């Protein structure tokens, strides 16, 4: 084993295919997109080079700013609703006496279902006439709460978030659960001996020791929220009236509905840069926290 790991030639050889694929499928298209973003092109004929004009237009585009606002709201929902729920579930599932495996598996099932299928499912649940949600509210005599969840501007964005929450809560829960399980039981014993109750153990022992795991989850959750497309596209298509339109959907519409390939590419480059910047910020944030501790 050590011999293989120290054999530089072997390492290069085996890493080569994957790096090649990653370059061709991930890196090269990004550069091509950067080139496209400097064009005024309808996607079919020849494009004309316009330099940074697309980016300057983006800066003043109200609809684009609105889409960023929506995606930031979505990020907030992800970080402050989805993660705490996952954490709570992970803490509970890690500590129950029976059925751990069962709950682990059940919560994870939504993760493996495609976003489009989940979108279709929840679309039927939210339906104003025959949807499950309104039916349940009706049977609880809460008729005044029945509404057209996906068709109203006030409820559309949060309604578009719930399926995402449902889908990935198991994913984050599983990562955190693994983290919790890897904490040495001796620490728990020591804490119990010192007289800590379960709440104190959770807050003062488990969560601080979960920091690296939490960092991973926060990063995934953040990037996932910034890049979300298929779920929202199926649920609302960006409507009603742009209240659920996020940059990915705006980009798709610009390219395929409005035939503005260059402008859409500029949006995609922005999304890439946005994810990159946020990841760097997160890393800085967590590093500072570590140095403080």
């Amino acid at each position: 084993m050590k011999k293989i790991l120290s054999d530089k030639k072997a390492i290069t050889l085996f890493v080569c295919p994957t790096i090649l694929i990653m370059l061709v499928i991930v890196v090269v298209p990004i550069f091509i997109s950067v080139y496209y973003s400097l064009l005024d092109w309808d996607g079919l004929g020849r494009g004309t080079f316009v330099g940074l004009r697309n980016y300057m237009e983006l800066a003043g585009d109200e609809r684009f700013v609105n889409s960023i606002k929506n995606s930031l709201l979505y990020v907030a929902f992800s970080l402050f609703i989805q993660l705490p729920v996952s954490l709570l579930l992970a803490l509970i599932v890690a500590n129950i006496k029976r059925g751990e495996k069962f709950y682990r598996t059940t919560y994870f099932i939504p993760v493996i279902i495609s976003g489009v299928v989940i979108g279709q499912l929840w679309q039927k649940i939210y339906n104003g006439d025959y949807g499950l949600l309104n039916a349940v509210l009706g049977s609880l005599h809460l008729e005044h709460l029945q509404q057209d969840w996906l068709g109203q501007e006030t409820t559309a964005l949060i309604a578009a978030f719930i399926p995402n929450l449902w889908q990935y809560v198991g994913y984050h829960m599983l990562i955190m659960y693994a983290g919790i399980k890897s904490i040495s039981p001796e620490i728990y014993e020591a804490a119990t001996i010192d007289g800590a109750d379960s709440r104190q153990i959770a807050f003062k022992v488990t969560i601080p020791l979960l920091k690296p795991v939490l960092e991973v989850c926060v990063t995934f959750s953040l990037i996932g929220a910034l890049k979300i497309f298929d779920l929202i596209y199926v649920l609302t298509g960006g409507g009603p009236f742009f209240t659920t339109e996020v940059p990915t959907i705006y980009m798709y519409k610009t390219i395929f509905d409005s035939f503005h390939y260059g402008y859409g590419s500029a949006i995609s480059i922005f999304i890439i840069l946005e994810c990159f910047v946020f990841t760097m910020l997160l890393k800085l944030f967590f590093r500072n926290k570590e140095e403080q501790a």
Partner: protein
Amino acid sequence: MKNRMKKLLALFAAASMMVQLVGCGGGAGNATAGETNADTSVEAQDQAEETPAKEEEAAPSSEEEITITIWHQSVADTDPVKKIIEESVTEYHELHPNVTIVQDGVTGEQYKTKIKTAFVAGEAPDISYMFSGGSFVKPYIDAGYLLPIDEYLSQDTKSKVLPGTLDGCTFDGKVYTLPTITFLANLYCNTEMFDAAGAKIPTNWDELLDAVDKLNAAGYTPILMGEKDRWPGMYWYDIISARTASNAAIVEAFGDPSKFNSEGFVMGAEKLQELVKANAFNDNMMSMSYDEMIEGFAAGQGAMVFQANWVHPSFWADTAATKGKVTCVPFPVIDGGAGSITEFSGGSSDGYYINANCEHPKEAVEYLEYLSEKIGVVGYQQGAGLPCWDTTGVDTSTLTPLDMESAALMETGTSYISWWDNILSAEDSETYKDLVAQVMALKITPEEFAEAMSKLQPSEFY
């Protein structure tokens, strides 16, 4: 020695996996820059099980084996064109054993994306469907992707096509396709609901509002609207403005959009909002899709829809609650408006266009003639639309009463304008549809609507 063998084996395994990946990845290419590659074999693209269409050259003396690929958007089981295309594939092969047609279909909005990426990647099929009206197909013609077919059309074909219908297939003086069937938009009313509510089928605007009130009082949804996809609402504004401003004014405004900011069009938006305020539409119109609207009407959930004759199979199906209980009438006249009741929304034909890189244009056009005529005649018989081909002597016993009604209405027509999203450029269509949605949600005033419309680009067709 054994060690070396192991290393070699591992290397070989890795290399063979790499080769496999490269081989599989070939088809799913990135979108390259907008040049049309001179492709030797044009493949039918599909995510799953499509077998690449290969071209085989038989010995020079016997006839060549030809494969022609065609893409379309007729995938719904209630769409008669779906079956027509499938049948044409088998029938044509029997007539011309050396020609094999391979067909592939994807539904409407997704088809638009698929065909666009295919052309840019140089992997477009020999024949592809294009939506009617011009604004969808024009960018493809301008980019040189499609083949003019004047030189391949036989005189026989030209004589069988109804006069005037070839105009919609001609761009820059060259013919690019053949018409198939045409569509007319009319108001469909559920007669059972009207009777139960004591309402009269409306012939003018006041009667429409009256019917709306009576239907509401009887507990029925007066008008079903699936505005999530935005184009159903667009149809309403298309026809209301035809009544308030007249088709002639609309044509003028297409050429000079500043004319949209005028009384006729403001009045149109006002009338549309009047309907909204009278609770004519279903509450969840913003989240209801087109398909749900049609299924809903066929299931008896609403009293009226304004749609085109492709809905006939759905409304007259044996399983539909509306079978035998629906009639189609022209959209009501609006008093004080400049338009008349013989002005219609519709009238252009979609078509199938030949790829400029097609290897066998002559054979492709022959199939196109065959297919277009079949859709024109058989499609008409099955209620898919009104024919653009000569149908004298054709058996019309399979037509439903709805088909007869809309055919009769077409005979009364004096002027036709296709759906505006087929005439306006892609971007303007999006803007227009969004504006209509805002009007229907009462978010902007009619004046603001007209003002925004006046900022559109002049259309290339008028």
